[in-house]
Every structure is written in C-alpha cells, then in structure tokens.
C-alpha cells in the first residue's frame, strides 16, 4: 500500500465517520461529543475478534457494527431523553467512561493497546464502505425517517403534534450513526493494525464535529467534502512542523466565522441537479434541505 493509498484510506474512513456525525448532528440536531467512542467500539470489537479468534475481517467488521448498535441503545435509551446540551454532556461522560474501561481491561490490551490486528484494508474496501455509507445515509435522509429527524431538529414540539415520536426518531438516528461509526472503526482497525484507548478521546470527537461543520452541518455533500478536505489539509501541513496545529485551527475558525453554515451550507450534490429536465420533473429543492 503506497502513501497515497494510505492517505486515501484515511480520508475514506474520515468520510464515513463524518457521515455518522452528519446523521446525528446535521439531521437530528444532537451534538455528540462521544462519537469517537462508537468508532472505538467498532474498532475494538473487530480488532479483538481478529486477534483472539482470527475471524475473517469482514465478519469482524460486521460484528463491530452490531455491537456498536447494541451500545447505542444502552447509551441512547437514557441519554436521548435528556435535552439539548445535557445530551452532549452525557456523551462526554460516555466517552470518558469507555476510555477508562478500555484502559483497565486486560482483554483489550489495556493502555498498551490491542496489538497484532492484521493490516488488510485496501483502498477499494474503503471505496465500498464510503459508497455504501453515503448511499444509505442519502436514502435515510430522503425517507420519512430522515424527514422525521429533520422535523425533530427544527421543531420538536410541532413534530410531536404530527405523530412523530421524537425519542424513537432520535434513537434511530443515533443507532444509525453508531453503526456507521462502528463500520469506520472496523476499517480503521484493519488499516492501522493497532488500537489504543487514547485514539478515541473527547477532543477526537470534537474534531469529527468540527470536520462536519467545516463542510456544512446541514449538507451531506459538505460532510463528505469537509472530512476529505480537512484530512488532506492535515497531511499537507505536516511539513509546517510546529505551526501545524495553529495553522489548522486558524483555517477552520476563519471558515466557521466567515461561512457559519460551512463551505457548502445546505447545498447538496445530486446527479439530478446536473440535468435540468429531471430537476424540473422531480422538483428539486432550490434552497431547502435538498430532496
């Protein structure tokens, strides 16, 4: 695997993670600062099965997704009842807690980490993952479930009067986001071959959030391109050595201040938008959330 391929794989994994953040934050309006923990759950499950039972990577990743979904219910059922900022708080708590548990757990390698996961992720695996994730998230967004999430985000009370169960909508979005993060975690495990608890901290989660904001919180396209742009930017800035983090944070801050809606705002890329006739027929949104 060449350097470019590994950058590409990293970009792909970040795009997948950003799709998860988009579902929970962009669509549903919940600010999760614990998204990295779901990546951790996927990664550790996959890595553990691969090292301990030498299972096929695909099975490991699937298992990671399943466990992520299960955990999303354990975390979601109490914390999604909390409102607004309290939810963010609960996710921070979850992130700290999971880190502490991974650190003390001998099974998962403790602070030394999980060593010896086979390095098998190739670029086409990631392409498959990205395409599948983007497609599924797009479907979800356009379906009644996605619309329900959007309604909950904009006006929870009104949504309830239309018979939308806000808690159920949030839980669905949360679980979907977790499943996506779990997939990204699995790919990460097989890309890096090594996992340690300090790879999945609260600041890492906040970086994911910032990534989605950078591209445009309310745009799926923005989430994809924001994640890609910032991952590549980080790599480009490698040569600036000690200035790297300052330059990176400054660039993001300027974008957030100049374009609070992110680079793409609410604009969505769509094959249909390239074709004026279909655009008219399907009645694509001009300025809305995209259809």
């Amino acid at each position, binding site marked *: 695997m*060449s350097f470019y391929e590994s950058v590409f794989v990293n970009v792909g994994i970040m795009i997948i993670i950003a799709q998860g953040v988009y579902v929970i934050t962009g669509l549903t309006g919940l600010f999760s600062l614990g998204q990295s923990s779901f990546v951790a759950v996927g990664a550790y499950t996959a890595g553990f099965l691969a090292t301990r039972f030498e299972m096929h990577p695909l099975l490991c990743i699937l298992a990671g997704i399943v466990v992520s979904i299960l955990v999303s219910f354990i975390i979601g059922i109490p914390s999604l009842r909390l409102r607004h900022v309290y939810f963010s708080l609960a996710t921070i708590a979850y992130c700290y807690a999971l880190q502490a548990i991974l650190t003390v757990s001998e099974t998962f390698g403790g602070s*030394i980490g999980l060593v010896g996961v086979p390095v098998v992720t190739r670029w086409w695996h990631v392409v498959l993952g990205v395409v599948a994730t983007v497609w599924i998230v797009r479907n979800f967004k356009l379906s009644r479930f996605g619309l329900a999430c959007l309604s909950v985000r904009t006006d929870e009370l009104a949504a309830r009067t239309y018979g939308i169960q806000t808690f159920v909508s949030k839980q669905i979005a949360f679980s979907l986001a977790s499943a996506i993060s779990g997939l990204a975690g699995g790919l990460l495990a097989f890309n*890096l071959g*090594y996992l*340690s608890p*300090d790879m999945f901290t609260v600041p890492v989660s906040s970086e994911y959030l910032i990534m989605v904001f950078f591209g445009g919180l309310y745009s799926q396209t923005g989430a994809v391109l924001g994640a890609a742009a910032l991952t590549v930017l980080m*790599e480009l800035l490698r040569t600036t050595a000690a200035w*790297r*983090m300052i330059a990176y944070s400054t660039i993001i801050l300027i974008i957030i201040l100049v374009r609070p809606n992110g680079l793409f705002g609410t604009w969505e890329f769509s094959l249909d938008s390239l074709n004026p006739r279909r655009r008219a027929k399907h009645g694509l949104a001009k300025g809305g959330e995209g259809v």
Partner: protein
Amino acid sequence: MKRFAVILAILLVAFGSIAHANEPIVIGFITALTGSTSLWGTQEANGAMLRAEEINAAGGVLGRPLKLIVYDHKGSPQEGVLAYRRLVDEDKAVAVLGTHFSNISLAIAPVAEQKKVPVLGQAVEPKVTIPAPGKLNKYHFLAQPSCIEQGQMMARFAFEELGARKAAVLADKSNSYSISQAEHFAEYFKRRGGEVTDFVEYAAGTVDYRAHLTQIKAGSPEVIFLPQYAQPGGMQVKQAKELGIEATFLGSNSLSDPPFVAAAGGAENVAGLYFLFNVNWSEPKFEAFINNYEAKYGEKPVTYHSLFGYDDVTLICEAIKNAGAAEPEAIRTAIEGLTDVPIMLGDGKFTMDAETHRTRNMPSWIMQWNEAGEIVPVQLVYPPAD
C-alpha cells in the same frame, strides 16, 4: 484514485521543499512537534539534526550527505503511521528513526514489516519488537532499556542499596510507559522478598493525587515508586509533601526533566529523590555536545531527549557504514549486528541484541536530586540478569 494522487502530489510539491543534490541518503525522523509532548519531540529533532550536521561536515556516510526529514506525529498513532508511509514512499527514506512513544511505535511496527524499511526508536515497551511470544518484528529496533529492565533496575536499587522492604507504587493506568515499569518494579521487588504496601493505578487526566497519596501514606512505605512523566510526577511529589509523606521517592527517567522540578514546586521538594536515568550529564564527553547544541539553537539542551535524537543518528549512520550500502534491507541486517558503538547514553557503548531487537545489557544511571536542584550521579546499574 490516480487523479487524486496526482493532485495530492502537486500540492505536496508546492508545500514541501524537496530538493535533490548529490544523491543524499534520506533518513526519516518521526516525533512530536505539536501537542503536549512536543517539548521532548523538539529536543529529539534538534539533537538529531545537530548530529546529522556534524556527520555531513565530516564527509557524510559512504561519501554521501545525510538528509534528515523530520515529521510530526502529534501524539496520535494514525498520524505516526502516515508519517512513516510518507517518509518511505514519498521521501524514499532508507531508514526511519523514532518514536519514543510506545503507542505510536506499536502502530508503526506492523507497517514497517510490510514496507521493509527499518525503524530505530526509543520506546520502552517490549511488545514493539516482540508483539507476541516467539514472534519478532524484523524491522523494528529499540535503543533504550525496556520498561521491564528499567522497573527492575530501580527495584533492585531500592531493595539492595536503600535496603527498603516496604514499597508503594503510583502509576498511570492509561500510560503504558508508566504502568509497565510499575508492574515490573512491583514484581521484582516482591520476588526479592519486599512488600508492596499499595499498588495504586489512576486514570488519564487526573490532577489531584491526594486521594491516592493519602491511601499510600496509610501503608507507611519506605519508598514510593513514581514511574511518571514530568508533569504528573511533579504534581505527585508536591502533593505528597503537602500531605507530609516522608518516604523516599523513586522515579523514572522523565523525572530528570527540569520541568519536573518546577512542577514539584522547587528543589527542596525533590531533594533526595532517586531516579533512573539514561545519561550522566556531568561526564566530560557532553561538554562538546552541549556547546555545539547551544551554538546551533541558542539554548542549552532542555531534556535528555536531545541525546535520543543524537544517538539515533549516530547508530543509523554506523549501521549504514557497516552495511556498505544505503539499502533498507542491508541496513536492517547491519542494525542487528551493531556492537559496541560509541554513543552518548548509558555507559557510552551500544550493542543490539539480534534476538530481541533491543539493547543488550545497556546500563542506566541512578541519579539523585539534591537540595540545590542539581542532579547527582549515584551509581551505574545494569539490568538484572534474573
């Protein structure tokens, strides 16, 4: 994929400054230039660049100049792996130096096995070179005594020289450097017949250790082992003094950092503390190094990590010389065979153990902080054979 690669290549050329002259030998160096551990990283990079300059001034290696490329890993394993890949694939490095973080070296190790470009680092975790019993990472080497050896050396010193029979340990569970040393200290100390009154582990991000220290105090140990980085170590000593703990403190090599004394609240708090150290700065051989360092960077070396960088370059150049070719595979074989190479750390001689890919019988110094805030050498100790 291809177009992506082309665009990225153009951008990289625009950003980077890759010049080619007289076919230099490219050596990569991965360290922390940003983030909370960048003090050490910068020291390492400075030491390495100083050494590379010296070698180039003396005619280079195999008649070719050395080109050292330093990349940041900002404390993250993913970043470390990307830096390694970039060094190997883009910069065509024939060998890579760094890191002294076990977590990052652990992540780089499997990639190095695929890329077959050797890595020489300073991590202390034995799993970096031996991921599982009976399995050796062919392309990874460590140039510092392992955490097993460091923990045991300190335990033996406490048991034999200080005559301590009751010890307590305070370790960061989230930091493998800390917890591994602590475990091996306790294991050795107990094996020799000592008692470990308390083995307290704490979690990342703790700043207040008085709960832990109060517990340790209750067991009234004679010595307390603090295998720590400078900042937590300093805060622990300071808070222990506040709580009136009178036991003798033992520490790891990071407690040599001047920031440790500052964080501990001054020289009077650290006076009497013994710690294991890779280097005896008072030896005359360091005078030239310190002067050259100061001439180049305008300040004296802050921590001993500058010597990590310095020695890493010395070792890799020796290996290239012995290999007779700047080829990764040849260098790898040559590193395995490094014997009695003159270096700065330890007792000034370096021998690689081809079985473990770690140093063979590399000694460390037991040092002590005195009232004046100076480091006083106590004795040179070798890893216990048992």
